[in-house]
């Protein structure tokens, strides 16, 4: 058993739902108890889809268990066939149905339905959402891709090179917009899209996957298994670079151009993103060395680390992913940035690592947004799992040159900007520049009284305000890694004592670096056998850690 408050991934059948919901004319028959229908709201509410996901749940109850749940399953199969008239049907079981062992695959085979039926084996107690999506997509491609289809003769027909885009699904992080951006980018290179799948594809589209010259794996977590199969079966080469960030997009353009036999230079020379200039502009100077903690799915995390480090000039101080299947990529990247990779699906372990790293910015998932809120740290979301607010109305891809522009904005705006940092240091007594006010462009970003992380001064006024807030929201703050009473005022870790004078000085340091300053000073004190931190200790430490 694993203790979980939040989870990064849903069960594998939710992955299958993401594939089915992204496609057209494909229905998913899910053997499951009532209650599993909650998954519908992920699509209609979080993603704001205007149609119900194409899923029929058999909805068995306890009283059915003594009787014949397999009959229930077969009735639901016939009912959904008649009602929805799908072109193909996926059939599987959720975690509970897996335990009652009705064998949906065998049952459906006996029924001899007049449409293609794809049985799914998704072991709920071993695997998770991304794997479930990848396996489902792979099974669909294996069952429906027509092996007779091959690319038409390019020279004879004068056609442009053709690529399949593989991996986007319903409920994906910006998949909707990435498809548009990548299709546009390929068009600019002189490459056409044959099929985009699973998102938007019909069974007939899957049948003609073999007509493309090559495959582009947009999201390896979901598309790679199918792309491997297509490579083996249709000998279609695979583009594996994920075009998130300027550098990666340029690499992607070169890789596509090479496989497609087109010239990448005109596109690369046109410098299609504002991001590189925005990043070099003088205002961005303040971004230098900002310490950033990155956590998400492996693909987005690896891309984020490269952007953070090479394109924004941040320092990667924490880095990891939750999907172990792709941990190898994260480990390889971690070496480049000289950090210890964190591979875990326990969000409490991530919280602990963030607390220790004391970053100035978190790039994470919805879970890290929760954590950031607790620690009063700025945060931007880079990966699923996500929230309704991560499905924006506007066009906001992550991929391609436009994606790099979007990323620049998203990853820079949560921070205190440019010269304001200096003003904050200079005018600490100005009430509008106080800790409670936070960055002036984000009035709401600092939650007074979450009290830990960077806002760690144990100040009286702030503590009062925090109690007040807690009462209002009825969300009492429960420390995770500290005793409920908290440390006594002025006592640091390991019984280090701060003098009043030094503590007063510490509070003059802007909130967004204060946590780091405090930790550095205490580490310095511990290493130098100093038990009482004086004003001078603070500045000795500052000099010691200055770079």
């Amino acid at each position, binding site marked *: 058993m694993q203790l*979980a408050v939040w989870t990064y991934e849903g069960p594998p059948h939710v992955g299958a739902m993401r594939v089915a919901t992204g496609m057209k004319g494909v229905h998913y028959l899910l053997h499951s*108890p009532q*209650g599993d229908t909650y998954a519908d*709201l992920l699509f209609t509410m979080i993603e704001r889809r205007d149609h119900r996901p194409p899923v029929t749940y058999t909805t068995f109850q306890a009283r059915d268990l003594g009787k014949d749940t397999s009959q229930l399953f077969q009735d639901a199969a016939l009912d959904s066939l008649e009602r929805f008239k799908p072109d193909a049907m996926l059939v599987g079981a959720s*975690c509970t149905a897996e*335990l009652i062992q009705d064998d949906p695959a065998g049952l459906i085979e006996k029924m001899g339905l007049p449409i293609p039926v794809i049985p799914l084996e998704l072991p709920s107690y071993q695997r998770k959402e991304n794997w479930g999506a990848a396996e489902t997509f792979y099974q669909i491609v294996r069952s429906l891709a027509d092996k007779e289809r091959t690319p038409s003769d390019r020279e004879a027909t004068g056609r442009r090179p053709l690529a399949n885009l593989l991996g986007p699904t319903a409920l994906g992080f910006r998949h909707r917009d990435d498809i548009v951006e990548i299709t546009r980018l390929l068009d600019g290179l002189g490459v056409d899209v044959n099929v985009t799948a699973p998102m938007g594809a019909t069974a007939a589209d899957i049948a003609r996957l073999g007509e493309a010259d090559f495959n582009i794996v947009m999201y390896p977590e979901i598309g790679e298994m199918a792309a491997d199969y297509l490579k083996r079966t249709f000998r279609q080469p695979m583009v594996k670079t994920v075009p998130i960030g300027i550098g990666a997009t340029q690499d992607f353009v070169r890789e596509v151009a090479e496989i497609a036999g087109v010239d990448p230079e005109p596109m690369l020379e046109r410098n299609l993103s504002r991001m590189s200039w925005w990043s070099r502009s003088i205002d961005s100077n303040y971004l230098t060395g900002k310490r950033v903690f990155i956590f998400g799915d492996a693909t987005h995390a690896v891309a984020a680390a490269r952007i953070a480090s090479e394109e924004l000039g941040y320092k990667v101080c924490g880095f990891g992913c939750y999907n172990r299947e792709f941990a190898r990529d994260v480990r390889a990247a971690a070496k480049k940035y000289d950090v210890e990779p964190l591979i875990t699906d326990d969000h409490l372990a991530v919280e602990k690592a963030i607390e220790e790293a004391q970053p100035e910015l978190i790039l994470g998932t919805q879970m890290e947004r929760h954590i950031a809120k*607790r620690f009063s740290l700025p945060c931007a979301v880079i990966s699923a799992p996500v929230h309704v607010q991560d499905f924006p109305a506007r066009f906001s891809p992550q991929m391609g040159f436009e994606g790099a522009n979007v990323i620049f904005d998203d990853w820079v705006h949560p921070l205190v900007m440019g010269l304001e940092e200096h003003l904050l240091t200079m005018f600490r007594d100005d009430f509008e520049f106080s800790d409670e006010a936070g960055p002036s462009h984000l009035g709401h970003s600092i939650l007074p009284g979450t009290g830990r992380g960077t806002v760690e001064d144990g100040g009286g006024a702030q503590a009062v305000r925090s109690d007040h807030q807690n009462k209002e929201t009825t969300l009492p703050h429960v420390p995770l890694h500290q005793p409920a009473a908290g440390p006594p005022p002025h006592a640091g870790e390991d019984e280090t004592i701060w003098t009043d004078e030094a503590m007063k000085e510490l509070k003059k340091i802007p909130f967004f670096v204060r946590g780091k300053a405090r930790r550095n000073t205490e580490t310095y004190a511990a290493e130098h056998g100093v038990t009482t931190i004086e004003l001078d200790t603070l500045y000795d430490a500052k000099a010691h850690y200055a770079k």
Partner: protein
Amino acid sequence: MPQGAAANGSDCAPVLKEKGQREVFCGLTGIIWLHRKIQDAFFLIVGSRTCAHLMQSAAGVMIFAEPRFGTAIMEERDLAGLADANEELDRIVNQLLERRPEIKTLFLVGSCPSEVIKLDLAKAAQRLGGQYAPNVRVLNYSGSGIETTFTEGEDACLASLVPEMPTLPEDAPKNLILVGSLPDIVEDQFMRLFAKIGIDNVASLPERSVDKLPGIGPNTHFLLAQPFLGDTGQRLLERGAKRIDALFPFGVEGTTDWLTAAATTFGIDAGHVAEVLLPYQERARRGLQHQRERLEGKTIFFMPDSQLEVPLARFLANEMGTVLTEVGTPYLHRTHLTKELEHMPPGVQLSEGQHVDKQLERVRATKPDLTVCGLGLANPLENEGLSTKWAIELVFSPIHGFDQAGDLAELFARPMRRRDVLKV
């Protein structure tokens, strides 16, 4: 599901019984409000990744702090042998209590998979309770989707508390228990009202802390604040308490009846009660006035969700002039709803259970002005041009009592008002 209760209310309109795909939450979701209400408790679901994902999807949009619930996610090896699963559960509980020493009551909550593999959580609760006594009380109930729908999870939880209630002596003075978790503000309002009426010995089930469970004895009377508490009511009766039959406290009519029924049971002069309630009733009617203009003559369709449907429909029909096209409920507890059914307009189409596709066909055929439905159905229906109201909002909002009557009506009026103002 069926509570085997006597079918006292069988004289009401014919009920359409349906079975098929349901579009409701399972009982685990009750934890979302229970963990806020019962502040010294932690709810540990013994379940699958699906359960954890459900809680996250249902609660994740509302709760940003670490909640007082979690899931012990069963894995492959836990299914291999039940002995192992028990050891694993002990390890998780140990880990949890070490990390959260402030927990005073731990609910082990059964789920579909733990029910199917017959993991005996009652036994586990006993074992762990012995181990952690007296610091932590360990209780158990099932919130599984094969046993319960949505609000029945609260019923199962409260029912598990009934045996823990202290026994009052036979000569103890009359006491009153309000059963069903109410928002704190509403609970406080009711307490003030009961005091004004002249009933002082009032407690709630659940209280905000399990440590303060009300006592129960032959002189105990209870008032259900929620219609979905079938098992809890039954267990209270078995312990000798007496149920006060009343309308549920929605709207002026329901709240008046609920309070008056209690007053009558406690032998309080009817004239005095009427006098106390009059200003509250007048204020509530003022609050309802504007909404009545918006709701009168409008048609409404209730998809089955929380079992609140019948009393809410009664309120809308009688006080707002709303036309009921269909009132669906996951389960119709005839005993607890006898009075409600008597107060419904004649001939209303009631339906019990769910076949969601057939229901949606009826919604499309009747084109109601408003459809009350689950989260998964709302946007698709909006896309078809139908105004909807999330049923779950009615569970999460303060809607009981006089001072919330206007808010309750506003919840139904808002989607239509919005439809009128939008020009996009």
